[in-house]
């Protein structure tokens, strides 16, 4: 598959750039459940080298989002305070590479696994400052009208219900069995909604440790925008704060800075006040949304549609952690 794809890619990129290229390397990156990601290194006849990232849709994907959503989200933040890769091209057709895809320039830096403690040591503080501050910048970023219009089509108010309905549907379509903890969590969310904001933000949808690139003490790029949508900025905050991303050191969300510091940095950067009970709602929502993703992964694996071990891993370990988080929040609120 990879060899066939690399040859199709070379043909496509040569035609697209109107220059002849040869491949130096073409490697698939492990991880990610919604797209296949490839690191590509090419050079032209004058020995000019280019490093590219290709994101291509999979036959079987956990999260059904089109390439355009992700492309537009990246486009919304080009040349802003939110570091994102430079976009090159996007195609929703499958006649070029066999599936829809998006092409961008590779950024310098590496992405960490979100489940490894102290992975950012010794730069936790500097990276933490940037991580929470960039999230604040996403929350207050003004979206250009054309992009806003595109995202608005998918958005209904109230935002919380729009999102909860969406993920609740995934859970009940893909569930292998009844999970009383999760059902109790969903009922709690419907009965105790947060207040609706009178402004709208771009929500990244998967802003967390592991979805950014860093080089020593600097964040060089925010990645994986395929779940981007318009909504309440506390949604991203709740997701990024979730203890699942710092399971072995829960007081330091994302294994970066202390929770209270993270909230202060976010408030200063976004200029948005945080209502504690609304934030708690979004933190419980994050666990329910996480469960929807892990259940979907388990369903893909069990049905044989996609037997990548990442799907089994997702159904087992993150699924367990999010259930425990739901239980903790429910117990606190009895």
């Amino acid at each position: 598959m990879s060899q066939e794809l690399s040859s199709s890619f070379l043909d496509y990129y040569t035609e697209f750039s109107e220059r002849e290229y040869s491949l130096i390397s073409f490697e698939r990156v492990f991880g990610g459940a919604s797209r296949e990601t490839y690191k590509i290194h090419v050079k032209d006849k004058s020995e000019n080298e280019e490093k590219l990232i290709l994101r291509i849709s999979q036959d079987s994907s956990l999260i059904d989002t089109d390439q355009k959503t992700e492309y537009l989200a990246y486009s919304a933040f080009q040349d802003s305070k939110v570091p994102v890769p430079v976009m090159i091209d996007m195609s929703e057709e499958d006649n070029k590479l066999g599936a829809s895809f998006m092409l961008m320039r590779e950024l310098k830096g590496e992405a960490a696994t979100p489940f490894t403690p102290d992975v950012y040591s010794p730069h936790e503080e500097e990276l933490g400052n940037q991580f929470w501050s960039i999230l604040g910048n996403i929350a207050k970023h003004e979206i250009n009208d054309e992009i806003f219009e595109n995202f608005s089509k998918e958005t209904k108010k109230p935002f919380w219900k729009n999102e909860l309905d969406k993920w609740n549907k995934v859970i009940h379509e893909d569930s292998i069995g009844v999970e009383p903890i999760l059902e109790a969590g969903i009922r709690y969310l419907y009965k105790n909604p947060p207040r609706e904001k009178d402004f709208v933000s771009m929500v990244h949808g998967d802003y967390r440790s592991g979805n950014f690139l860093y080089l020593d003490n600097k964040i060089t790029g925010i990645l994986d925008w395929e779940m981007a949508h318009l909504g309440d900025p506390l949604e991203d905050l709740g997701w990024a704060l979730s203890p699942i991303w710092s399971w072995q050191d829960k007081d330091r969300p994302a294994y970066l800075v202390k929770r209270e510091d993270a909230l202060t940095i976010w408030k200063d950067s976004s200029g948005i006040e945080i209502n504690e009970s609304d934030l708690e709602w979004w933190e419980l929502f994050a666990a329910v949304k996480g469960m929807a993703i892990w259940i979907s992964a388990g369903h893909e694996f069990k049905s044989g549609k996609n037997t990548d071990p990442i799907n089994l891993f997702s159904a087992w370990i993150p699924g367990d952690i999010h259930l425990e988080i739901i239980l903790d929040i429910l117990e606190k609120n009895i």
Partner: protein
Amino acid sequence: MKPDINIALLNAAQEIINRFSPLIEDEYERSRLGSWGALILISAMKLNDASSSLRKENMDIVDWLNKYSNIDEKDLDTLSSFNGKSLDQYDEDNQKLRALLNSEIEKLEMLHDKDSLKQSINLMRSMHKRRSVSDLIGLLQQSEN
């Protein structure tokens, strides 16, 4: 006496992680095989207790339903018989019991019965703890490294 299945799996996992996976040059395929090794390791560690854990969970749910719901004990007769059942049968019973538990908890929520709800949280926590593999997260970090 022959070595147990879980011992066979444990050794297979160790060989995959430590011996075969490092030989693969392609980064994607190496990570994928390493993940399989870690997942087999987790399976091996959970294999021995799978049946007894499910049986205990079913017993606990039946006890809770008898105590906190209005379901007639007789209606739980088939589900509360624990002898001579296979793992698949325990699993089938478990799905029915979980559905009953869920609907009974929903009734308690509507009645705002805090004490019974606390007991339901305790039950769900013990069920979750027994099944949980999240404490084995270190194994996956090890395989990624």
